[in-house]
């Protein structure tokens, strides 16, 4: 009698615990639903419907016909092509440096982390003070006698110069972000593997190429995934550095919403950003897929 009663209590308790995970993720689901899914649905509605609620492609037409659309797409892609590879190599180097546990290595971590603490707009303004004609860079170069007239770095007639300036600022600002993810991944690699390869006589680059990089693949995947998604949203640094000299997708979305007061076209731009981010994410997920049996446990 007592045992049966005991059993049922335990079964009931187990049943209650089985439901617990769902209760635990409920707040997150509600949060995501309210603040991400619902606004996204509204965004679709805004982009594809007119004032009176009829379905239309007018906003998309206006967006594509606008002179700035092509410029925004090409400049955004150009930035990604320049920034992401450089950033990856730098972030990898920084992570390896930290992981080498040199004396005073903690200092590097602090230095690397500094840009993360600064908002992107503030970073843009700081870099504009460096690159502007009477800025720090020209002052230093003139002081060193490298140039005798200030050089105009932020020249809107030169796309190359604008890309280089924006890329420099973006790389400075967000490389640490990638590094943090890669560094965490590096720390998860058991030392045995690296030591074993050392025993077999592998040099530093061989170790990186054949041991570390393959084992780091899941972290690389995450780092690239997040970096690419953020790259499509790049905005404040570009605005601060180039003014209306160059434009990117997020800047156009902002302009249509705020300056031109047309939320439909602004929503159309955000759809483009969403679509491109999804494609980029899918590519990264497929290309850098790690088979289950090769994953570190």
């Amino acid at each position, binding site marked *: 009698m007592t045992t049966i009663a005991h059993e049922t209590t335990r079964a009931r308790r187990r049943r209650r615990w089985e439901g617990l995970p769902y209760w635990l993720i409920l707040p997150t689901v509600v949060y995501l639903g309210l603040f991400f899914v619902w606004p996204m649905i509204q965004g679709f509605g805004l982009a594809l419907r007119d004032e009176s609620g009829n379905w239309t492609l007018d906003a998309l037409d206006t967006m594509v016909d606008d*002179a700035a659309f092509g410029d925004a797409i090409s400049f955004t892609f150009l930035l990604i092509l320049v920034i992401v590879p450089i950033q990856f190599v730098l972030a990898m180097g920084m992570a390896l440096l930290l992981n080498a546990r040199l004396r005073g290595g903690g200092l590097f971590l602090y230095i690397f982390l500094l840009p993360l603490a600064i908002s992107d707009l503030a970073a843009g303004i700081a870099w504009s003070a460096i690159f*502007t004609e009477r800025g720090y860079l020209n002052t230093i170069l003139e002081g060193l006698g490298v140039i005798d007239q200030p050089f*105009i770095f*932020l020249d*809107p007639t030169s796309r190359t110069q604008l890309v280089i300036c924006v890329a420099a600022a973006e790389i400075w600002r967000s490389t640490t972000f990638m590094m943090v993810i890669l560094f965490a991944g590096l720390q998860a690699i058991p030392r045995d593997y690296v030591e074993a390869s050392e025993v077999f006589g592998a040099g530093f680059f061989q170790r990186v190429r054949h041991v570390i990089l393959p084992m780091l693949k899941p972290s690389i995947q995450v780092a690239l995934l997040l970096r690419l998604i953020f790259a499509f949203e790049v905005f404040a640094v570009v605005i601060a550095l180039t003014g*209306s*000299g160059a434009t990117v997708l997020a800047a156009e979305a902002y302009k249509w919403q705020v*300056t031109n*007061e047309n939320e439909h076209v602004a929503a159309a731009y955000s759809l483009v950003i969403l679509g491109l981010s999804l494609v980029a994410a899918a590519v990264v997920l497929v290309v850098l897929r790690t088979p289950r049996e090769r994953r570190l446990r």
Partner: protein
Amino acid sequence: MDDVQENGLGWDEPLDRRKLLGKAAVAGGVLAAGGLLGASRAAAGSGADAGKVTAFFGQFGAIAEQEGIRKYVLRGFDGDVDAVFAPISAPNLFVDRVRAEAKAGKGSIDVLVGLHGDFVTFQNEGLIRPVGDVAAQIKTLPPALVKHGKLGTSTQWFVPHSQATYVMVANKDVMKYLPRGADINALTYGQVFQWAKAIRRGTGQNRFGLPASDTGLIHRYLQGFLVPSFTGRFVTAYRSKEAVAAWLYLRQLWQYTHPQSLSYAFMQDPLLSQEVLLAWDHVARLKTALDQRPDDLVAFPVPRGPKARSYMPVLVGLGIPKNAPNPTGAKALIRHLTTIGAQAQILSLTGFFPAVGGRLSKRLSPGLLAESVAVRRQQKAKDAVQALLPVGIGAENGNFNKIYRDTFTRIVRNGENIQAVLREQGELLDQVFVKTNAPCWAPDPSSGKARCKVA
């Protein structure tokens, strides 16, 4: 850096914060004694506490301006003022919010501080109430400005508060490049071009600058200065051959314009750093440079074109929304904002000149003094023509500006065929008037009740 100190009461040495507060309290009195004569001090309110008054500013949204208005301009008002500002980057939110509150049927704003053109929209849409009684109480207002507040009706819709315009500023270093025989106070567009070209030849760099970033006011340069100076019109002559000449002029001037102009929002910054030695902008956006370097910079009127010396006056007014929760308090605040003390502080904080009559003080900051002289010369020039801010196009305001900016991008930056661009953009401009049915405004000849048409 202390914003208040930087932009605060500019008629003396830099002060510390505590001194500044004391100074602010007596500032009105000082100015009244030194200048702005013939203006009597209107009592703030009726002496009784006006209660909670919410003021919504469509102007003066810069952080330093906001802080100064809260700290100094609203000081001494007998009541509790909640000052709300439309962001500088999104001035359209000013009209939007008033409209939204009217739609919601529940108002929270008591006083509106907006442009002449904003009040046209408010009046058209029936969002504001008459303010004739309070305007009549303020004896210091010049009748000409009061008349603007009637918006062409027989009812007073807003009380004029302050005014501004746009002028040119040059660094004294480039005075030697001024074309021979040119009078700096009566320049022509041709002479400005020659000047910019000579500066390039002399310094090796393009040192003429325009505020052509997204938050710069280059569209006002196109709408109120360049195009009407060549065509004598604002909208109707948009596609005329005189307009083609105006755009051709700008395309040529652009060769001698600093390429970083596309990232300038306030010309005072590149003028201070000397990236730019000759510039055009709104007085409020030049003020800091003129205040800090009064001996190096000179302010002067805008040039004249083949048809006129066109300039755009900016008139800020005070009104009361129809559904204001505290209209009595609102009227008290309007009286306070038009007192000499409050007007003097607005002037020193923002560079917007008082609407109330009287002579300007000799004790103004050097920058404001220089600006006020240039503004006065510009207004009094025989060939001066006023091109007013867009009137009555309401929600199409953003689009209206975009059309001018896009025309600039296509013709000047991308070098497209001028006639073709004007034909296409003119079509879009005409659509603005099809949508809003707005009649023409000065300097276009009146179209009566009919909508304005792009010829």
